């Protein structure tokens, strides 16, 4: 069978998009050349190379100082800028539905909701977001279990960077609740856990006591008293004697809460107003979450920055970076650029993209620069800071030996509006190539997508310059001379209707 040229191109493009440049993925070595490499903690490198082995950065430096493996695939070139892939600190996009109806659902998992072919993930590649923390939405009390993913792969498992990672907890009321019932629901959730654990321990103690007395009465040694569980840890509160309980005996719906109280789980605590911030901090501290908790803030919450600073917690900011407050009497508007407040106070913060396209992370960082922050501060808020917040600071967010090879090859400076992502590399595999991105070319270059035919514009009929078909029922008159007198080159009137049929 002879394949036509189009079929070959189509199938090639299909493979490329599905299996993300197989040639690069098959080789375990990759050399990325760039005219400019952006580092965070050191001087940027001019004319540099990044050597990737087994998905990690093996070496990075000036082209003439780094030894290149002879069998590596080479990508990039002197025209490109290499930068670390952006890290989305928190999002609910890419999920089938972002919020569960029930209040306290830590036994659910976003794994069952992430849609690998969701447009968000496609857009993430296009705009250089290589690590994404997917959590349930903020309309919850205690959410399902989140997951850190990369925007590539056809199954959730392929996409996964860290499974079963983190929970969203909202201090801000879920829709239909008041702040009082929201907080009561939250207290109940953790109160129930505590009572359940105490009951379990009580039962175990009773059983052990009975067994001890029985053994005493029968005059035999008591059976070996080895605790089946382990003692509860936690900086907030603990239940004494939990080692008596085999952890598998604890209700599986409560076990995730226990992991939070023991400080083993990451939590994201959502504050919808400045008044939520102190309760959120207290809640985190009282239940032992504070160590691994991050506050997720509405843009108005900058007002509580001092309380946050005192708590030592890090924050994820709303995608709306400029907080506008209107005076109720004078209607005067006061603008506060939120990231700068946190930068000035030295509170670690990460930015969220408002949407995956025009307000992607690069844009959010650029807006920070426009509003008086330094370039380093702005770039850190979309790379190293979110990496730190999600506990992956040794994996992603910057370019250094040992880190995952999540590298963007850009056509220019990452904060320049005309810059495009030329190639995106995740774990050493090229997962995005601008030249293969038909949708983006359709958007940016107006190139018709495959299958669509270009509008027929070659043969244009000269329309008539007369207007006698306006003589419908209302105006029965014949058009007078002079109506079409202005135009040169009048055509015969019988052609005039043709343009309406086009």
């Amino acid at each position, binding site marked *: 069978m002879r394949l036509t040229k189009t079929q070959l191109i189509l199938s090639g493009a299909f493979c490329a998009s599905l299996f993300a440049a197989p040639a690069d993925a098959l080789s375990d070595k990759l050399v990325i050349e760039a005219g400019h490499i952006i580092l965070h903690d050191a001087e940027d490198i001019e004319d540099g190379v990044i050597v990737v082995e087994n998905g990690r950065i093996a070496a990075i430096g000036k082209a003439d100082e780094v030894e290149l493996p002879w069998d590596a695939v080479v990508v990039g070139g002197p025209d490109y800028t290499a930068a670390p892939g952006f890290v989305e600190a928190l999002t609910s996009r890419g999920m089938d539905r972002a919020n569960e109806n029930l209040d306290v659902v830590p036994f659910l998992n976003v794994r069952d909701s992430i849609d690998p072919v969701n447009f968000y993930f496609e857009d993430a590649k296009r705009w250089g977001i290589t690590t994404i923390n997917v959590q349930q939405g903020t309309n919850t009390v205690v959410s399902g279990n989140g997951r850190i993913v990369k925007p590539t792969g056809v199954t959730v498992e392929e996409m996964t960077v860290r499974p079963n990672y983190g929970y969203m907890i909202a201090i801000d009321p879920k829709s239909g609740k008041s702040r009082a019932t929201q907080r009561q629901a939250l207290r109940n959730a953790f109160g129930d856990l505590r009572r359940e654990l105490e009951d379990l321990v009580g039962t175990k103690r009773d059983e052990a006591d009975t067994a001890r007395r029985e053994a005493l009465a029968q005059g035999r040694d008591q059976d070996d008293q080895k605790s089946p569980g382990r003692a509860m840890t936690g900086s907030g509160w603990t239940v004494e004697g939990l080692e008596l309980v085999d952890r598998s005996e604890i209700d599986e719906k409560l076990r995730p809460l226990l992991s939070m109280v023991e400080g083993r789980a990451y939590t994201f605590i959502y504050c919808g107003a400045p008044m939520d911030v102190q309760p959120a901090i207290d809640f985190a501290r009282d239940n032992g979450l504070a160590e691994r908790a991050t506050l997720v803030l509405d843009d108005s919450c900058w007002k509580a920055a001092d309380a946050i600073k005192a708590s030592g917690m890090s924050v994820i900011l709303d995608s709306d970076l400029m907080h506008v407050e209107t005076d109720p009497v004078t209607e005067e508007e006061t603008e506060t650029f939120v990231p700068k407040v946190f930068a000035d106070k030295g509170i670690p913060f990460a930015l969220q993209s*408002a949407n995956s396209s*025009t307000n992607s992370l690069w844009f959010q960082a*650029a807006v920070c620069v426009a509003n008086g922050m330094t370039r380093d501060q702005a770039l850190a808020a979309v790379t190293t800071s979110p990496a730190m917040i999600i506990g992956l600071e040794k994996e992603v967010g910057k370019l250094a030996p040992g880190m995952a090879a999540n590298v963007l090859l850009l056509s220019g400076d990452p*904060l320049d509006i005309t810059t495009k992502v030329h190639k995106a590399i995740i774990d050493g595999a090229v997962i995005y190539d601008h030249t293969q991105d038909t949708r983006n070319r359709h*958007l*940016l270059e*107006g190139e018709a997508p495959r299958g669509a035919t270009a509008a027929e514009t070659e043969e244009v009929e000269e329309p008539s310059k007369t207007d006698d078909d*306006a003589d419908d029922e209302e105006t029965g*008159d014949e058009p007078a001379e002079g*109506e079409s007198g202005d135009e040169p080159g009048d055509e015969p009137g019988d052609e005039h209707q043709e343009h309406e049929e086009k």
Partner: protein
Amino acid sequence: MLLPILLSFLISEAPAETAPPVKLVISADAVYSADGNLLEGGTVAIAGGKIAAVVPGGDGGEGALHVAAITPGLIDLSPRIHTGDYSVEEASEVRPGDLAAGSLDLFDKRWERLLESGVTTVMVGPAYENVIGGLSSVIKTGGKKRIEARTIAEGNALIGAFGGQAARGNSPVFGRPTTFFARRPTTRMGTEWAHRKAFYDTLAAMRDEERQFEGWEAMASVIEGERPFFVQAGATQDIRTACYLKEEFGLPSMVLDGAAEATREPEILKRAGAAVVLPPHAAQGRTAVDNAFMPWNTADELLELGVPVALSAHGSASANANLGMQAGYAMRGGLELDEALRAVTLTPAELAGVADRVGTIEVGKDADLVLWSGTPFAATSRVIGVVLDGEVVFSAK
């Protein structure tokens, strides 16, 4: 203090007794005058609300205001800040005589936001709910809260609409015959019919006094080329229809507003000689105008065709969608900085017929300036100050 003296020397070439004193001096690392000139290191002097001098030398001297860049005040021909439901007369689809400017609420907060985003001049017309909505005016976005004080050109264009918006919300007479709101058109076809009938009636009115109707003079002025016909046409078929209408009635000047799909049939557009105002760039390409698709290189392609292009933000003042960002997005689509600048200053000024007053930084023109923290339209820059008629009306902290 040194520079004003120097500048007063410069402007003393003008008759000394009539020249007003220099009131404000601003220097910048770059002065983009939008007429093709870029002054790297330049100073603008303002006197009597007008630009008095533009000279090289950007240090400004002690006490002078110094910024990274200066551009002319931006101009948006389609800000779409209307007074809501009542900005369109519903008695008829064709209301050529209505002047929209009188119904504007100058106390609306959006004018102030627009001004702070760098837009100093806008063209305001009736909403595109009528087939022919009335006359537009060109006004400044700041200054006294009186429409007369802000107007620089009254009734500068006749406003019309093709496509879905003018037909929306109408219902045909056979549905509910008793209702006042039953009226045409209800389709694109009906909209076009109403346009052609209006122009046909105007031709009749022009030769026969008996057949004159309310507002016919405004229609006639468009046929005679005294003012442009400024029409919304977003989708390919609407742009085509508008171009055919222009050719059929020999309208000398037509501006297509929201013409998202203007590059689909370039030959027709070029032959008709219409100018274009583009709608705001949309993340996925689908614009608010009839959901028409606009690739981001549209402005670039149109310039290559030789079609005059102005950009619009449809009144948005937000950081990611204001007029400055629209220029930036057009640059992402391939425009050079000077082309993008022209598309938000000089070109719209020319299309609205006010280029003698605004649109460039030239001696004698209105002192409307935007002061930038960095390169204009870059995502890393912002508007840090706005000068309107020689007064500093906004300065960021």
